[in-house]
């Protein structure tokens, strides 16, 4: 199975990656007649570069988003958080795919959040210290921040839901990097067969460290 540099958890997701490449206007050699090794290496090269490139958000929007998710599930004494799990990448990719209808909500919401941070604390959100960021997010969660279509709490809940999805869903979707989310709660990974020992209470089951799509049995969904 094809493994891509720096993308160990993202396996063989050709179609979606190709769509991303098209979106970015990159060209890779997928023409018929290419020998497989050449094709693989070409694809790996192109895709490796795409792996961390933004597909929906602008760099500024992504910076704000990263700062938000880093407070929703922070890295702390209990281990890495949503940022380390790359929930931002999950959201960015989903906004070009399964959640594309919510892209405009994100663009407007992130702008409103920065504007609110500017008016309340004198800086864009990402540049504020953590305590100010938490204050801003609390105001937004409890609908006390102006400038949001449909109320600020609604936007907070949307980002929170997607941060949880990006941290705890199958790594296939671009988040849960290195199984950070699953390790946090002790979920021992996707399996297609589970032995009796893995259901005992007197052991801590070892993680499979696998995505559902590592097993090669299933059709992939839209990222």
């Amino acid at each position, binding site marked *: 199975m094809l493994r891509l540099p720096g993308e160990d958890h993202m396996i063989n997701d050709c179609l979606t990656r190709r769509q991303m490449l098209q979106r970015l206007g990159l060209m890779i050699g997928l023409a018929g007649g290419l020998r497989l090794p050449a094709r693989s290496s070409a694809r790996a090269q192109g895709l490796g570069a795409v792996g961390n490139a933004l597909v929906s958000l602008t760099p500024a929007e992504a910076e704000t988003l990263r700062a938000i998710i880093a407070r929703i599930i922070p890295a702390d004494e209990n281990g890495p958080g949503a940022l380390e799990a790359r929930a931002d990448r999950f959201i960015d990719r989903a906004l070009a795919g399964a959640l594309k209808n919510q892209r405009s909500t994100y663009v407007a919401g992130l702008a409103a959040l920065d504007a609110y941070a500017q008016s309340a604390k004198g800086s864009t959100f990402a540049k504020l210290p953590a305590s100010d960021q938490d204050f801003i997010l609390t105001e937004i969660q409890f609908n006390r921040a102006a400038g949001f279509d449909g109320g600020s709490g609604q936007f907070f809940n949307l980002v929170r839901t997607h941060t949880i999805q990006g941290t705890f869903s*199958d790594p296939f979707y671009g988040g849960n990097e290195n199984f950070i989310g699953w390790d946090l709660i*002790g*979920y021992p990974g*996707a399996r*297609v067969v589970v032995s009796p020992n893995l259901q005992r*209470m007197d052991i801590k089951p070892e993680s499979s460290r696998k995505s559902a799509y590592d097993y090669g049995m299933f059709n992939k969904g839209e990222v």
Partner: protein
Amino acid sequence: MATALKKTNVVIIGLGAAGGIACLPIAQSGLEVIGLEAGSWLDTKDMAPDELKLNRGLWPPGPQKTKLEGITARANASQTAIRLNHPMMNAVGGTSVHYWAQSWRLNPWDFKVRSETMRRYGASRIPKGSTIEDWPITYEELEPYYDKVEYEIGVSGKAGNIGGKKDERGNVFEGSRKREYPLSPLRTSGFMERMIAAGKSLGWHTFVAPAAITSRPYNGRPGCAYHGYCSGAGCHVSAKSSTAVTTIPKAMKAGKFTVVTEARVTTIEVDNNGRIAGVNYLKGGQEYFQPADAVLVASYAYENVRLLLLSKSKAYPNGLSNNHGQVGKHYFSHNQGGAVSALFPFNLNNWYGTPAQGIAIDNWADDNFDHSVLDFIGGGNLYVYTERRPMAAVNGVQTWMQGGPNWGSKWKAFVKENADRWNVAYLQKTTLPYEDNYLDLDPVVKDPLGFPVIRITAEYKDNERKIGTFIAEKMRQWYMAAGAARVNGDGNVAGGMFASTHAYGGTRMGDNPETNVVDRWGFSHEAPNLGILGGSVMGTSGARNPTETLQALAWRTAEHLVQGWKNIVK
């Protein structure tokens, strides 16, 4: 103009849990049978253990008639009904493709609730306003068909009563069965073993619940993989005994059985004598008329009622088989509300498994205990099970934060500690039919074809509320005995009895045509070549999942059609 097709012997409308059973004895008899299914064949490649895909509404794949048609519901006639999502799925195999696969026989008491209540406690104990009747058949009459279903599809369990001989390893409260289950019970997990010990410490009888899932290889299918993505998802190894992988393919091999997928039945046609002539359906934008000697309606309870009410004719001006005004009456859904949940001070390792891998207690179900000094009849089945998915684990913890934060470091620490420490019991309780709980056509809301959708008017009554409170207390005791630190839920149910995966009544079975739509064989009292399958014929719920009962009934109705063919089709 509809294209008229060549006449066939039998049309089955819907190839789910019920229709998917009925096709087998009919095909085996040599009769020609056509199954019209609104959904399509599903592929195990689309059954990935992927929580996000399931949450995003990408399951079930294929056309979903139920999503187009929907349902409306209200608690009582003074309210305006609101639109709800339909709880069932369309596919070959229907909801048996993704159900929990708990596969129970009803308790013998469930077939004669009225007469047994009057005999043991007096007529005054029949709850006010209830239209409950005894079934026209007994548990003993249905037993051979339960047996056929269990052996045909593959049900795993331990008998607790074979020929009257009780066995503590099974459910000692169950009715007498002819023989052991074809498959040993699903295995126990550590959490289940803890709950077994806790139940025993209370002096209650615990047992591994029966499941329509193979505990070991059976009829060419492998044993269960216990991988944790069973609920609301198809089985990637076909260990779940849905009709799509058991009786339907067997019927296709056995005889002249044609499956027509993506066929949406709109009306049933009758002739001038009030006999069924055939069915109209849409497929690929085309209208077809399929003539048939006999028709079995086997869609879900809501659609069975809707299809009859939409099929108006000179012979049946108020809807097919509704000249006594009983179609839609005696409707109820299962009282599964009033959740009880627990938080333990240790991890349960409840990841993986399947909801049918569970431990049950029947001491407080049906009439298994004395109700003399109580103010309700019936009871509930206590049930705990395995299967926990990561996002559900994270979100489920929130209730235990008691209004605390739902983000940030404090929340994260709580989630980390407790994601695998909570549990929710599944409590199914006796539910009765009442004169003012019913189904009819919504006067306002229509589907995209312009046909009215079905409307539920139903609410919980005192008997259901009292059972809820009583059962919640029993469940609390069980959890506490297992070492729970906290237990939530007082079992209170109130208000509307909305759309359910356990819908009963609407075309009730009974000898009296004044109060029932179908006779003791499942055939219409009014249109003799019309059979009805599914929960809509059931007059009581019992305290357990309806699927195996409606499958046994479907087999019995199909067998009656075959054996009485000459009389039924004339």
